[in-house]
């Protein structure tokens, strides 16, 4: 593969970033739901 470094950097950041963002939203949502259920 030509320019493999660029391709890996692009896909790594975009797909990895998408996964990290999804994880962060789900974690924040779970924490807020816990707070609500515990009456905080």
């Amino acid at each position, binding site marked *: 593969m030509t320019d493999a470094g660029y391709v890996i950097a692009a896909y790594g950041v975009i*797909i990895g970033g998408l996964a990290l963002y999804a994880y962060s939203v789900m974690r924040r949502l779970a924490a807020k739901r816990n707070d609500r259920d515990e009456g905080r």
Partner: protein
Amino acid sequence: MKTRILGIVALVAVAAMVLIALFVVPADLNQGDAQRIMYPHVASAWLAYLSFGVTALAGIGWLWKRDIRFDAVALAAAEIGVVFTAFAIWGGMMWGDPVWGVMWQWEDPRLTTTALLLALYVGYLLLRRLTDDPERRATRAAIVGIVAAVDIPIVHFSVEWWRGLHQTATIGSPDRVLNPAAPMVFVGTLIGMVGAFTLAWAYLIIRRYQLARLDVERDEAARIERLMSARTAEVAR
């Protein structure tokens, strides 16, 4: 449950399209494998437009109906739009360096207006932190969200209106909807990637909206508690 299924479908679709884009579709004859970056780059840019368009429409909804749910949608879409704009810029830089010889050029209208788009919506998110009053926050944010959306068509048509490094649209420009500027195998893969990313976007919008709604509920409960405390103190005096 339905949202969870959507999340699983989106995950499978994105994974499949990444594998197709990296290992199944042939490399471009001129640009080589660097052209494979086009798929997530263009998909991210499309979702940035969609997100900020939703933010503007939800802002109009808030100003019209005064329903705080519109503000929660606007917030969810703006935050996700900022994420996708950052992805589009990063993908463009990684594609630009091997193809143009530079990652960034401020003289290029597409690059500069996209950077402005990112700055506008980071500003939008920061503006929301300036007040605790949900109604004032929603109104200010709605106005900024509507005004900032003016940059969306400027970003999209900048490659048609002005000359720069950035290529013109592969699809999506008025004269290329039925006559794309790339081979059909590339266009098909691009459409597949846009579809997969849009599923992921839909999942994220729903989850981020649910989070924003919980914040609204918490703010409202805190506001009622403050009012009750003030009332109790008043009665006690």
